[in-house]
């Protein structure tokens, strides 16, 4: 080892201007809009409370859930500690089975690789399995810019795509839409309805809507020569990729086309099949509230004459190694994207997924997005939580999200180059709180707030900011004449 400390080069974050990890507004500004949308609030409240109840019922029936959860946490922590070795093993195994592995430092590189691979097949359209990684890097937009049409095949993802909307939930991207709104989108955008004009048969009955989507998608599956998927897990010891889903659309994409391209974040690797067993129990119960998901597809490399004849795996960093370097924040990489934390989050339930400005909304998004982009690019997200801790309680891999939120808040405060009025106030308060004499003076000053109240039990609503943010909707009690400690000393002499 060199005697001179050269220092760690700072690790690259997800680049700006590519993908969907940053919003163009701060969380409070974006939330303001969705909080006023009564329909959205009703849709979200209904959907999250239904799935919360389902999840709770199926989790409660597992006697060793706590042990299972601890196993999941421990496997993830151990895997992350040797991520480099597991990834190299994965590459060797995938290659040995006839696949090709590509490494992408960031979203730009990943998109370029995928575009090049698709172009090499000579096609100008692809079908897609629902994937957060490709959402994250903005692959659909990049493909479109390169003249390649990407068709989403997951029902909810399709709704979002046809509606020219953006996803607002990890698992149920169209959670903010109700049935009537979905029917309207289908009638407006699906070619089968446009040819016939209005279709009176398409009611907003879920079955009818699903049948319409099926007819629409079947044609796409049969035509597609290239499919693009994500992966829920990759088993290093055998080079096996896994996708877990409910609808079977994924399986159609994974088996019918000639070429399969899988885009995966580097944190998705697990060392062995035995590890997979743990996650296949934790994931479905936490995410859809099912004991087991209907479809689990596993594939390794290529098999002559069966399934895709060409397989590419694109391993994406896009800020992940920077997250890994942070000893507190790295636990966010353990996430298996079950979305349980979104469904219990009171902030998510009110503000909705779009307020987070990233493809990763809710509690996990509030810690993951700022880490992937660098905290200054998503500085309002670590504050988008009341730290109630409900997310930590439900997380199947026990990610202590509240602690990471608090840690990121400190990173943000410490990264500030200019002193803000808030910092001045907090520093002055800290000085007072750590100096008993000053603290008594500060308390007396608070007591002087009585003057404002003119003898009423509450202070007037028209206080200057930031107090006005409180008094817009809540009364602030008039401070008492005497503090408890003053009174105690007066009565008891200490």
């Amino acid at each position, binding site marked *: 080892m060199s005697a001179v400390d050269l220092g760690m080069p700072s690790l690259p974050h997800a680049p700006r201007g590519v993908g969907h990890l940053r919003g163009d507004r701060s969380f*409070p500004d974006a939330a303001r809009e969705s909080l006023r949308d009564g329909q959205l609030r009703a849709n979200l409240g209904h959907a999250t409370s239904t799935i919360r109840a389902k999840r709770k019922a199926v989790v409660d029936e597992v006697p060793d859930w706590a042990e299972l959860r601890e196993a999941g946490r421990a496997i993830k922590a151990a895997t992350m500690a040797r991520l480099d070795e597991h990834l190299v093993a994965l590459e060797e195994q995938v290659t040995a089975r006839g696949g090709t592995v590509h490494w992408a430092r960031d979203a730009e590189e990943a998109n370029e690789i995928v575009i090049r691979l698709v172009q090499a097949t000579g096609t100008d359209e692809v079908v897609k399995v629902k994937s957060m990684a490709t959402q994250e890097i903005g692959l659909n937009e990049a493909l479109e810019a390169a003249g390649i049409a990407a068709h989403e095949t997951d029902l909810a993802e399709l709704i979002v795509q046809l509606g020219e909307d953006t996803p607002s939930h990890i698992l149920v991207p169209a959670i903010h839409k109700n049935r009537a709104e979905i029917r309207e989108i289908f009638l407006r955008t699906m070619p089968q309805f446009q040819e016939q004009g209005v279709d009176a048969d398409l009611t907003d009955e879920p079955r009818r809507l699903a049948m319409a989507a099926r007819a629409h998608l079947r044609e796409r599956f049969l035509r597609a020569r290239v499919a693009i998927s994500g992966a829920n897990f990759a088993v290093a010891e055998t080079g096996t990729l896994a996708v877990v889903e409910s609808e079977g659309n994924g399986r159609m994409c994974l088996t019918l086309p000639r070429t399969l391209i899988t885009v995966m974040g580097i944190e998705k690797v697990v060392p062995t099949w035995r590890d997979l067993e743990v996650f296949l129990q934790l994931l479905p119960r936490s995410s859809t509230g099912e004991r087991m998901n209907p479809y689990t597809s596993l594939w390794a490399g290529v098999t002559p004459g069966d399934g895709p004849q060409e397989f590419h795996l694109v391993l994406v960093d896009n800020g992940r190694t920077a997250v890994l370097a942070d000893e507190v924040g790295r636990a966010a990489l353990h996430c298996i994207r079950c979305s349980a934390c979104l469904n219990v989050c009171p902030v998510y339930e009110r503000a909705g997924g779009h307020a987070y400005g990233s493809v990763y909304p809710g509690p996990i998004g509030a810690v993951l997005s700022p880490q992937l982009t660098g905290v200054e690019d998503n500085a309002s997200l670590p504050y*988008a939580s009341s730290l109630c801790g409900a997310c930590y*309680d439900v997380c199947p891999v026990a990610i202590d999200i509240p602690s990471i939120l608090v840690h990121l808040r400190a990173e*943000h405060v410490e990264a500030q180059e200019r002193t803000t009025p808030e910092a001045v106030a907090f520093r002055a308060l*800290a000085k007072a709180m750590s100096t008993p004499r000053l603290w008594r003076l500060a308390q007396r000053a608070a007591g002087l707030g009585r003057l404002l109240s003119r003898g009423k*039990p509450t202070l007037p609503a028209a206080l200057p900011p930031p107090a006005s943010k*409180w008094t817009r909707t*809540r*009364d602030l*009690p008039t401070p008492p004449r005497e503090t408890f400690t003053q009174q105690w000393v007066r009565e008891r002499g200490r």
Partner: protein
Amino acid sequence: MKVALFATCLVDTMVPQVATATAVLLERLGHDVVVPPGQSCCGQMHVNTGYRREAVPIVANHVRAFAGALSSGVEAIVAPSGSCVASIHHQQAMVARRAGDHALADDAAALADRTYELSQFLVDVLGVTDVGAYYPHRVTYHPTCHSLRMLRVGDRPLQLLRAVRGLDLVELPAADQCCGFGGTFAVKNAETSTAMLTDKMANVLSTHAEVCTAGDASCLMHIGGGLSRLRAGTRTVHLAEILASTEEAVTPRQSTSPAVPR
């Protein structure tokens, strides 16, 4: 037992009657209460807002104020605030250690071992659930997030409330949902906070309780402030005040939310 009372910055400054009630209650149960001078704050607000470094001297002050008490025969430190006790348990040593002050971290951890939230102290340490209180009102209980999830006080406050004579305890729907206070969250994300408060108040009002109680003065200030603005008629009262009430003596100037003329 000799017990040191940590009043917490908010209670001491804004709702002193809560600390008074805690002292009255502990003395009524036969304990010797001391209030260590120089105490101010646990540092939670600084840590939770991102002022981790600035929290270190606050933690040091807390340790200074209470370490002496322990050496002079105090066996336990009690605070009427789940959230501050959670911070003492989960944050104080962490911020000191991160700042490289390992001696302070060790001292803070040692103090944390002796620090209890009121309901935990009563039920776990003293082994009492019936504290001899009398409170003839319809009451609903909000289990604040930090008491519930960080401290795991469980149903201890309910055990205590059930033993209060005259008290009609009514269950709060969706009790475990956050009220939307969240420290500086209430100001930084005021609209979202208000949306959460609105639902919490609707649940409180649906119980037709006269009083909504909890083990945290901060959440009560938020809920009580909202109810007062609505002129809803339901008041917020800290758990300590209810437990301190007896037929003979009702604690002075009770209720944390301002009285509303009906």
